[in-house]
């Protein structure tokens, strides 16, 4: 089958990817862009392991055609850290046991990142609601909630520190 080529932004880098046109964004990312940090668990939009951000919004990449991503900005787990410095959500997840096997973790981290962008101080109920589409079989979710809440504190502390150093 002949391939199609699209231009898009992946993790803040403009890029072109060629792939068979029936492929999902999940397959394009993993197989054609070699970004294997995005995972798959069910192929039908139930588990949330494949969640990535498209123009900042969480999207289940297994239900999203690669072609639809043309001209858009896609963020995967590989683009979450700032160089070697982990995003506060990543640090909090690692420190507080929110990642056990780590397989659902990329999808949960990106979904949580989108939540905090939209709503910087969510309640526990809002965190539960936002992550309700991401299944995790290891943790029982509680350490994930705590890590998101801890990340909020870390982000605020980081912002205060930046403000102080700017003055």
């Amino acid at each position, binding site marked *: 089958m002949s391939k199609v080529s699209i231009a898009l932004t992946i993790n803040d880098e403009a890029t072109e990817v060629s792939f068979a046109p029936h492929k999902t964004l999940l397959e394009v990312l993993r197989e054609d862009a070699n970004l294997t940090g995005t995972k798959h668990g069910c192929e039908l939009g139930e*588990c949330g392991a494949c969640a990535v951000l498209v123009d900042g919004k969480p999207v289940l990449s297994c239900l999203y055609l690669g072609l639809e991503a043309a001209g858009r900005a896609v963020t995967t787990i590989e683009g*979450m850290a700032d160089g070697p410095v982990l995003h506060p959500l990543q*640090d909090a997840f690692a420190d507080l046991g929110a990642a056990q096997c780590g397989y659902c973790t990329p999808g949960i981290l990106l979904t949580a990142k989108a939540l905090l962008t939209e709503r910087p101080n969510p309640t526990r109920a809002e965190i539960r609601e936002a992550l309700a*589409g991401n299944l995790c*079989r290891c*943790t*029982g979710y509680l350490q994930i909630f705590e890590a998101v809440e801890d990340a909020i504190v870390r982000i605020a502390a980081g912002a205060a520190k930046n403000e102080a150093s700017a003055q």
Partner: protein
Amino acid sequence: MNVVGKPRRRVDGRAKVTGQTRFADDISFPRMLHCRLLRSPLPHANILAIDTSAAAAHPGVRLVLTGQDMPTSYGILPVSQDEHALCTDKVRFVGDPVAAVIALDEDVAQEGVELLRVSYEALRTISDPEEALGIEEPKIQAYGKGNLHKAVSMEFGDVEAGMAAADHVFEDTFFFQGNTHLAIEQHATVAMIDPDGKLVVHSSTQTPHYLHRALSKVLNLPAAHIRVIAAPNGGGFGGKSDPFNHEIVVAKAALVTGRPVKICLNREEVFYCHRGRHPVLMSFKTGVKSDGTITGVHLRTLLDGGAYGSYGVASTLYTGALQTVTYQIPTYRFDGARMFTNKPPCGPKRGHGTPQPRFGQEVQLDKIAVQLGLDPADLRMKQVVEPNSITANFMRIGTIGLKECIQKVVDGSKWRERRGKLGYGRGLGIACSSYLCGAGLPIYWNELPHSGVQLRLDRSGGVTAFCGATEIGQGSDDMLALCVAEVLGIDPFDIRVVTGDTDLGPVDLGSYSSRVTLMMGNAAIQAAERARDLIAISVSKKLNVPRGRLVFSERRVFDAEDPGASVSFRDAVVLGEAEHGTLGTVGSYKPPPSAAKYKSGGVGPSPAYSYTACVLEVEVDPATGWMEIPTIWIAHDIGTSLNPTLVRGQVEGSVYMGLGEALMEEQDFRRLPPKRSGALVHKMPSMLEYKSPTTLEMPDVITYLIENPDGAGPFGAKEVGQGPLLPIMPALANAVFDAVGVRVDEIPVTPEKVLAAMELKRRTGTGRVGPGKFPEVQWPERARVPTPWEGGDGNATNEAPRKRDQRPQTPIAVDPSMEAPPGQAGLRPHTPEVVR
């Protein structure tokens, strides 16, 4: 302690939050081919012919394999070598793999699969164990009597006398529906030939050692020419513990094509791999005194094994073996049978064979307490097994913190004030459990270590720990680094761990039966102590301090009496290397000999047992039967909590998984109508239909860790990965009774069942939903084993002595005349009430 007991980031934490953990399907190689399997559409049929010509001729297809290419059978247990990489003569369940197509990409491979033509001769489908009991022919497997896979019968003490001594005898039947692991990662395997011509297999497996053995057997290659690398598993829970068809198929394909070959199962196929929780029908007959003291238990279990053996013999024995290690049971009879049916094979899921009878026992105890007017917590508390004792079936108990666990959840939940007083629709339920910390005997009986650890230290100060153990998310890599770091006084992050690789690390039997922390941990401590002792010799000379005074801590080695006299850890290693030459040490671990010498006594013994107690609160909507669980209080006897962050995660993860089983998860099947073949098909082989709890269903969990170091565990640690799952299901059923006064003697406890029981109660005065009677089973001759307090020595009186017991045994004090006084440490039988 340097690191023990301190909550910390696990050593592989960074990899997991950056997406850098390389799971099996993340591994790719140039020129890699892709494999798809053709799976049987029929539940039971003879294969008459397979026409592969069109598939083989399809452009892009490089190889087609059928069962004839790999005729040697295999299986996880030596007694059940009943699987083939691809079916050779018949198919036994919908999803049984029949042929494989290997092609340039996955799509082409699937096109090839669709071009395969198979002629089948359909056979009668056997859909459940009760049906299987009555069908001699057709047989699903060639071995076993009819469709009976395994039946066992054993009696410890005189149960009839136990029942005669009882004031009340309770008889109940329970059913526990099967369910599956549902690890989010789907099984994947990549096989290739490495540059020196040897086979390399990367796989999402919990047991690289057993896969190694199966590959060697089926492919007829020396094991030394095969390297198995267990990729970190994206969740295991027991579902990746068998050697699987697809692993052997891609290994064969790599050997034939000379190219890397990958397979990744889709979710439907993962449901067909299964090896999950056995559906079990149970009958509990329990004699009690009026004060609730148990005088005897007779348990019968009937397991739906599915189409293959898998771990089934062990699963069957596990439905009986651990009933005795929680409460004092002076006389005990266990009959268990596993039937073959035309369904995906069942196997080990978290708790392996023990959650089902645990559910029955804990719910029956609740009924006993209600009937006798006793508090269910008190009933349990007063007959907890004694520490340092031997049970009726010769399980050797070390520490036991169950009383403290019960006390914690009773206090935390305000049980005394709130049970029975929350008003209609709201209730509390209690349940307890215990679990083993690794199996005392290996799958292949031999004298070899169960776990080995090798350490390499060099002048850079670097330490590498090698072990065959497998990281499945539970934190096995972190436990390895922690144990070495604790002994050497360095940080876990200073250590590089190399695990799950049969070429690079000493054998560890795998991540199953809650064995890793205890067995690998003890091996790691031994290796690290040997390294520490070598280094100490050199440092003691340098500092002119006696070796016994040296302390390894905070990346330094110093004199306990003069901490100023010290060298850095790195300099200490340099001193050691200069004196002794290249530094490397090994450690290994083998469990102590078992006291259970009777046949079938190989399942149940463990170096230590963990204990858990739980109180669950439920709100039942009287109109719909819908259940909300606001809070669960759970206390776990962990011995020592090595990394509390991970321990809490295991407790909460177990609670979560138990709640899924309790409320909604079920692997169910249905028959197609006769005009559509009457075949038995999976009701829900997708995540859309197989429901599991989301963030919205997860209750608050109040966790208490009871620390009472057990001498058998590394730094006193016991298991936590499986035990805390066990009490959740019965605690829910008991809480539902407290809330609305009905009994659901069946798992899952669904709203429909609760509603049906409530309706029954309205009509008849009592509400119960559950199975009817236990069917007739032809049990084998019952092994008769005198209990320790009858002077038994662990042998059955009517069995010939077993070969494996010829090795020297540690003497066991089981003669009643040798009984130690209460409270005295050491081995002694617990002293149940005399029932004669």
